[in-house]
């Protein structure tokens, strides 16, 4: 079994999930992680599938050509890189017992550069962004940008210092930011 990454994007309509996943069933692939959502009227699918022996990314791409044409989807397929010494698992599939989950909320008058402005200092501190969603809301004449990101703080990272740092960046960007812990309680 090998992991293959598939992305597919197209104008939202009923039948996209059924059409694409039928190919995986026919090819004997198992759908592992996936995230699918509507972004500005475009249905965006990101998936990692487990492909059986003999089915590689090229074969899967060829098989997806049918539904891609029928549903007018832009499809991309590539093998998933295996984690290794040169490519340590930074993603949230690894049991990162040294990290804590925090949520960063950012909102303010919409203008270019907000996501990058917040992501840059996180990157500098080696803080991994695990989830990120943004929305433009409110009156089109005075749009408001809202962003929520899930981040994992490495051991030793100081959330208070990070909050101060993000506050400085947010002030410069003219947006508000807050940081709150989102570790779950195990019941």
């Amino acid at each position, binding site marked *: 079994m090998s992991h293959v990454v598939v992305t597919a994007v197209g104008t939202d309509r009923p039948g996209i999930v059924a059409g694409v996943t039928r190919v995986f069933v026919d090819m004997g692939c198992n759908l592992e992680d996936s995230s699918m959502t509507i972004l500005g009227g475009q249905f965006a699918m990101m998936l990692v599938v487990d492909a059986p022996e003999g089915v590689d990314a090229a074969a899967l791409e060829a098989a997806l050509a049918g539904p891609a044409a029928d549903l007018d989807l832009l499809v991309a397929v590539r093998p998933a890189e295996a984690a290794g010494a040169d490519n340590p698992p930074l993603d949230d599939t690894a049991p990162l*017992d040294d990290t*804590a*989950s925090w949520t960063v909320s950012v909102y303010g008058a919409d203008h270019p550069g907000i996501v990058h402005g917040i992501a840059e200092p996180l990157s500098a501190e080696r803080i991994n962004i695990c989830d990120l*969603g943004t929305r433009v809301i409110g009156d089109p004449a005075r749009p408001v940008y809202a962003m929520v990101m899930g981040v994992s703080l490495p051991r030793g990272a100081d959330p208070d210092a990070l909050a101060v740092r993000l506050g400085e960046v947010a002030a410069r960007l003219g947006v508000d930011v807050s940081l709150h812990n989102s570790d*779950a*309680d*195990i*019941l």
Partner: protein
Amino acid sequence: MAVRTVLELPDPTLKRQSQTVGRVDDSARAVADDLLDTMRATVACVGLAAPQIGVGIRAFVVDVTGHRKASSCHGELVLFDPEVVAASGPVVAREGCLSVPHLTGDVARASSLVVRGLTLDGTDRVVEVDAFEARAVLHEIDHLDGLLFLDRVSSPEALFRRKVYR
């Protein structure tokens, strides 16, 4: 008295409706003892329901002593045939479950409860719980009805991989 193995998804026992105890006898008390032993032996465990150790009776234990989010705290709370008499003030918070080890989810639950049930000595008890203790009690009662937090998660965005293994 023993520390028992906590069943994990997809064990079908977790999805079954548990049976009413009716009268608290020695066998029911033995189950509660095992639940208490298992809860005490498990790091960061604040509650456990009988189906989680493979017993299909309506019994749970909860202990939120020392938890930072706790307000009311009844120490080791053991109830059979629990019944929610009144509930108010839904609050959304992220929770996980020993029986669903790799995921967490944002779940809305009442933050103030009146719960009635039978104690270890078989007497009727009415308790008022709030905040984290209320969440824990509702989570455990759900187990007695074959419900997991996964059945209560509000949206796909509210489901997360569990990043902190305690």
